């Protein structure tokens, strides 16, 4: 995207940032005036510049999470002016540029808020609850031997496309942060659907959805009230239709598990 403003037109904003020294410390907003802001700067670059200034003054820099800075890793996680990942549409915080703001703006920066994402420091939260959900079933078990021919299992194009849509989830947690109930349904639905739509994902399909939903509940996320705040902020624009799909999949799996025939071969006389 090319800015309409030339990079020569510097402007000034105030960053109002949540500062909290540690998980149990009390936090508060602190204002940081930033001048010489270029519209071509990314939002995270502005945080870098502010942090350089703090370091020079021997103050503690603002802790914020980031890694790839190109929207693919899901590490960056700020709530900017009340919206996870800021004012853009379909972008992560690291893809936000200062041209989205104007001279004199006060930009309020907060961490993602959810009980299941405990705060580590300043803007950094611990999102390992997502890892626990993934470990509960977000995988397929395969025998690793010689690499099989990639085309040996045909995948219908429609399914492949849909699975790919779900697979674009970068696990950032913005869906949880935006949800009025801090529910993780969009993330879990994306992960459940991504594998559940593929032929390779079928053998563990029921087990997966049951286990991942259970892990989600155990992590202390809220319950979905179908308000779709999640998909509105998702940097990958994952649709909440996957949530409806997961609801269906879950009920089916529940009833199938309950009423499946009892095998006489496996258990022996009990």
């Amino acid at each position, binding site marked *: 995207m090319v800015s309409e403003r030339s990079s020569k037109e510097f402007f000034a904003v105030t960053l109002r940032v949540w500062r909290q020294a540690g998980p149990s410390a009390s936090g508060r907003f602190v204002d940081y005036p930033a001048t010489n802001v270029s519209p071509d700067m990314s939002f995270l670059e502005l945080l870098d510049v502010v942090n350089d200034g703090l370091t020079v003054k021997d103050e503690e820099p603002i802790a914020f999470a980031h890694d790839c800075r190109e929207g693919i890793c899901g590490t960056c996680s700020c709530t900017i002016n009340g919206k996870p990942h800021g004012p853009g549409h379909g972008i992560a915080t690291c893809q936000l540029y200062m041209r989205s703001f104007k001279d004199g703006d006060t930009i309020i920066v907060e961490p993602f808020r959810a009980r299941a994402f405990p705060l580590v420091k300043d803007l950094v939260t611990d999102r390992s609850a997502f890892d626990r959900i993934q470990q509960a079933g977000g995988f397929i078990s395969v025998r690793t031997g010689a690499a099989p021919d990639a085309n040996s299992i045909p995948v219908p194009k429609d399914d492949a496309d849909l699975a790919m849509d779900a697979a674009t989830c970068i696990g950032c947690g913005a869906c949880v942060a935006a949800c009025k109930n801090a529910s993780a349904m969009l993330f879990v639905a994306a992960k459940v659907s991504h594998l559940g739509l593929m032929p390779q994902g079928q053998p563990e399909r029921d087990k997966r959805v049951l286990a991942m939903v259970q892990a989600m509940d155990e992590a202390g996320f*809220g319950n*979905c009230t179908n308000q*779709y705040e999640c998909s509105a902020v998702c940097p990958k624009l994952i649709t909440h239709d996957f*949530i409806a799909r997961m609801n269906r999949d879950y009920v089916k799996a529940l009833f199938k598990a309950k009423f499946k025939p009892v095998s006489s071969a496996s258990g022996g006389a009990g």
Partner: protein
Amino acid sequence: MNLLGALFQSSIGKKLLMAVTGLVLVGFVTGHLVGNLQIFLPPAKINTYGHMLESLGAGLWAIRLFLLACVAIHLWLAFKLTAENRAARPQGYGVEHTNRATLASRVMLRSGIVVLVFLVYHLGHFTLRVQHPEWSEHTFRLADNTMVRDVYRMTVQGFNSAGISCFYLLGVGLLAYHLNHGLVSMCQTLGLKNERWTTGLERASAAFCWLYFLGNAVIPLSVRGWLPVLSGLIQR
């Protein structure tokens, strides 16, 4: 996890119960409205209908208990889910921002509570008859000379009070508002919705809610003589 445990404990299970009990109650209020609209027919109609329902005996109690169980589950889950949802975000945001959650979806508990208060009052009024015990004395002679309760007169008398009429309009109005989120939300929870269906479902739901509200609202308005043709159909 066993089936019942999963239904009552998992988040998706609880929402499913919420949706299914909600669906039962929507069915009930719709049937109830159709029955009520007999107020525009000669009094014998609705009084015969009321008598028929009351003489269902054990069947009536089975239906009542089933509906009561649905209300109880719906209500219990509403409070439980809300409490869990609040606990899921102990510390809120400095800036509260809403992207697209509708107002109706954000006040479900509050609209539901008003509807509940209305329901309790209404049951006291017509089913238990505690507010105006003297009204149960009103009887009506059917064509075959059986004496039955005069529900027609009870209704007309009830709506003669401006207070009751206003409370009634508020109750059915908020119920319609509650259903406007509830109906589409139910489809999502049951997994019966996707982008292609959304607009259609939302429109159908809005149309249903408006019809439901207007269908209910015309009754007190006619009794109070405010509607041109319909008011003429009420016998005072």
